[in-house]
């Protein structure tokens, strides 16, 4: 049809997606991908990248807007329809059957047959080999998928899309599970596919990867389209501005930190994930009383794993972690809390609260076994009511009553419930993981002020945040993590500027070992 621009392989026009619960995942998004280019779709977690791609692959339908594939307006009602239009998707979680061989996975749903009934396995192997050679994606057709490494699984996924006739490939954060070597291999393969005329949409939030292989990039933030750029004309700074957006600058008043004794001491911490990728690499640092140590970094550089280890959601592969000189590795969460550690978890709905329980129940969940809240067998309800009433007042939690279900509150108020519980547990160390992600400005400001207040009262605070603004404003000193290691340590966070941070975050710069070792206050 002439009215559409045939220069594009994919045009998504004015796409909006509103879920039945009222969440608007995409608002008036435009995505235009030229034929034969590698196009990056960028944005932070929750920016709406995955939703947009699900609509392009027919897994979800847009509330409004239109999708045009190769100049033809299409209605993608299911993945099967999308495949028929030449769209293939490599999901972040592989869509493979582990006990089947690579060849069997390749032909699943389109099995070659002999004598009408039996599977022609030789033919399946032949097809696999043919595509594997044609696209230079090396796989072992007879190996079972469960026995092959992650990098090869991804190749199988790409081949699966190609064998079904895909000309447009969507790759959802393909490098998240890959080692460095596997990533560079993947990039070579993608460039090779591009040369053969394939169009690739590459979802990522890693700046360095984007700069390396893409032709153009589109950025989403908070479900809105922020713009499209030629990769060669754009600076990492501009991308990060589009992605993160430091427009609302909230400054928190704080006086000079006067750190004293070391509370948290991490030494040579290591963690290798289930795919054999080293996520935390010989990490060492200290957090002292009275200071906020910030950890900045692009997501996926080991921050999540670090927090998981500190709170025993994951087991360290090596190294030590002590709180006030006592080991906490291998203890359970209750024992870790006994040592005076409090956690504001990244995912508050999963680890922070029980949505169906009341505000009061959530507030006492870490201390309900304690003597002061119990009289013999039964709860001392009077004390519990008193305590929760006080916390609701102190932390300005907007609710009908303490009996209201936490899940019914707004994000900001849910986070305040978490914060109220964690901050009132007499902690010596607070681990605040993305403490203000996705909550309103008022609650954000409140929580930030509280963090500063507590640190000045002599509590050690470890702040992990993907929000550059937050981590730079709040931290007294700051670590930048890259590739599971410390890329830089800055004793005075106020002397840092965005550009410098960016260079360390993207791994363009790295301090010397001596400079980094200053973070261990021995």
């Amino acid at each position, binding site marked *: 049809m002439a009215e559409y621009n045939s220069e594009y392989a994919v045009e998504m026009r004015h796409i909006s997606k509103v879920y039945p619960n009222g969440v608007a995942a995409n608002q008036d998004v435009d995505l235009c991908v030229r034929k034969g280019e590698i196009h990056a779709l960028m944005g932070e977690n929750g920016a709406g990248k995955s939703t947009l791609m699900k609509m392009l692959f027919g897994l979800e339908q847009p509330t409004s807007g239109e999708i045009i594939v190769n100049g033809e307006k299409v209605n993608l009602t299911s*993945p099967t329809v999308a495949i028929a239009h030449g769209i293939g998707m490599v999901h972040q979680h592989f869509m493979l059957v582990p006990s*089947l061989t690579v060849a069997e996975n390749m032909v699943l*749903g389109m099995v070659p047959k002999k004598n009408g009934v039996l599977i022609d396995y030789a033919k399946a192997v032949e097809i696999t080999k043919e595509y594997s050679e044609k696209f230079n994606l090396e796989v072992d057709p007879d190996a079972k998928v469960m026995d092959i490494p992650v990098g090869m699984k991804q190749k199988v996924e790409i081949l699966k899309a190609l064998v079904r006739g895909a000309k447009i490939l969507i790759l959802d954060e393909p490098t998240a599970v890959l080692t460095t070597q596997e990533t560079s291999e993947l990039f070579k393969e993608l460039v090779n596919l591009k040369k053969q005329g394939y169009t690739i949409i590459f979802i990522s939030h890693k700046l360095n990867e984007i700069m390396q292989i893409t032709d153009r990039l589109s950025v989403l933030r908070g479900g809105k389209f922020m713009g499209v750029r030629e990769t060669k004309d754009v600076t990492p700074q501009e991308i990060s501005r589009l992605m993160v957006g430091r427009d609302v600058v909230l400054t928190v008043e704080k006086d000079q930190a006067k750190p004293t004794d070391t509370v948290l001491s991490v030494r040579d911490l290591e963690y290798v994930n289930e795919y054999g990728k080293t996520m935390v690499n010989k990490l060492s640092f200290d957090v002292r009383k009275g200071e906020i140590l910030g950890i900045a970094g692009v997501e996926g550089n080991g921050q999540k794993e670090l927090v998981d280890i500190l709170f025993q959601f994951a087991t360290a592969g090596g190294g030590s972690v002590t709180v006030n000189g006592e080991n906490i590795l291998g203890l359970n969460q209750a024992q870790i809390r006994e040592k005076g550690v409090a956690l504001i978890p990244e995912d508050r709905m999963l680890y922070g609260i029980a949505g169906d329980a009341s505000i009061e129940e959530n507030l006492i969940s870490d201390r309900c076994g304690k003597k002061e809240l119990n009289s013999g067998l039964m709860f001392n309800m009077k004390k519990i009511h008193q305590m929760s009433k006080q916390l609701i007042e102190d932390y300005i939690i907007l609710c009908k009553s303490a009996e209201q279900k936490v899940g019914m509150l707004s994000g900001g108020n849910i986070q305040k419930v978490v914060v109220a519980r964690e901050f009132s547990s007499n902690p010596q160390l607070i681990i605040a993981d993305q403490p203000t992600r996705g909550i309103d400005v008022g609650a954000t400001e409140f929580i930030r002020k509280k963090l500063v207040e507590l640190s000045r009262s002599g509590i050690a605070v470890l702040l992990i945040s993907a929000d550059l603004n937050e981590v730079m404003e709040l931290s007294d000193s700051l670590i930048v993590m890259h590739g599971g290691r410390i890329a830089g340590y800055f004793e005075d966070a106020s002397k840092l500027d965005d550009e410098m941070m960016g260079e360390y975050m993207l791994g363009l710069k790295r301090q010397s070992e001596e400079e980094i070792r200053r973070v261990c206050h021995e």
Partner: protein
Amino acid sequence: MSNVLSSILSAEFFFSIIRITSPILFATLGAVIVEKAGISNIGLEGIMMISALFGSLCAYWSSSWFVGLLAAMIVGVIVALIMSVFAFQLKTDIILVGIAINMIGSGGTIFLVKSITNMTEGEALSSTTSLITSELQIPTVQIPLIQNIPVIGPIISGHSLLTYLAFLLVFLTWVLLYKTSLGLNLRSVGENPNAASSVGVSVTRVRYTAMALSGLMAGLGGAFMSMSYAMGWSLNMVAGRGFIALAAQAMGSGEPFGAMLATIVFGFAQAFGIKLSSIGLDSNLSSPIPYIITIIGLVVFAIVKRKRDAKRVAAVGAKQRKEK
């Protein structure tokens, strides 16, 4: 003691192992197929009971064992499909559906047999044994040539037609699972339904098919019980065979031939128990033998599987490190 040993090592004893194994083997194959599709059909016991009843009744009404056999198979499939509607369409927990079918298998069948015979025979019978004559039993087969071989002949020849079918079905099930596209779809749905549906395989259709096949197998097992193993249907005649089948499926790692071997072990245990009581052991002591062997078998299986899995994980890890 030598008396016991010689009676155990007789051809007649080995013949009885095969005979006792047959009905369990049908149900085991049914369990193997559904488990491959990721469904736990614990209702096999109940399906066997219901099919056994309708098999013997239809054989009596039509005066044909063949019609009875066909009816048992069809009833098995229908019951399994009814279970599927509850589980897949109405989203009831498949285990609860299975429990319901098993209760119908014991309580509902006796109600049915009484009300049906009250209408057709004029009196409420509590079993169909009085209706079944030996002509209505599934015929036995003497295999030419083999029956004349000493020792082997009397063990292998002379079984019910269904016994030979059961062992043939082990092979056919293997072909179905590993050599046909239905089998491939079935296995992929069982392991990763998202992967299957992402390439256009209808997960629901595959699950219905797997359930129907398991119902067919359990129907055959039921037919064997009332039309070959015993003369007619009686209450609780399946006596846990549907559950033993589930154990055999697990012990055989869900593979047709492995599960067959496990079933033979159970068949041996039952035959052994029967033998011991026939030579004078108190039946209160001999009857638990098959069930004790089931438990021991499952424990041994679990230990072996754990070791094997640990080895496999280690191997993948090593490969991963090498790749780097």
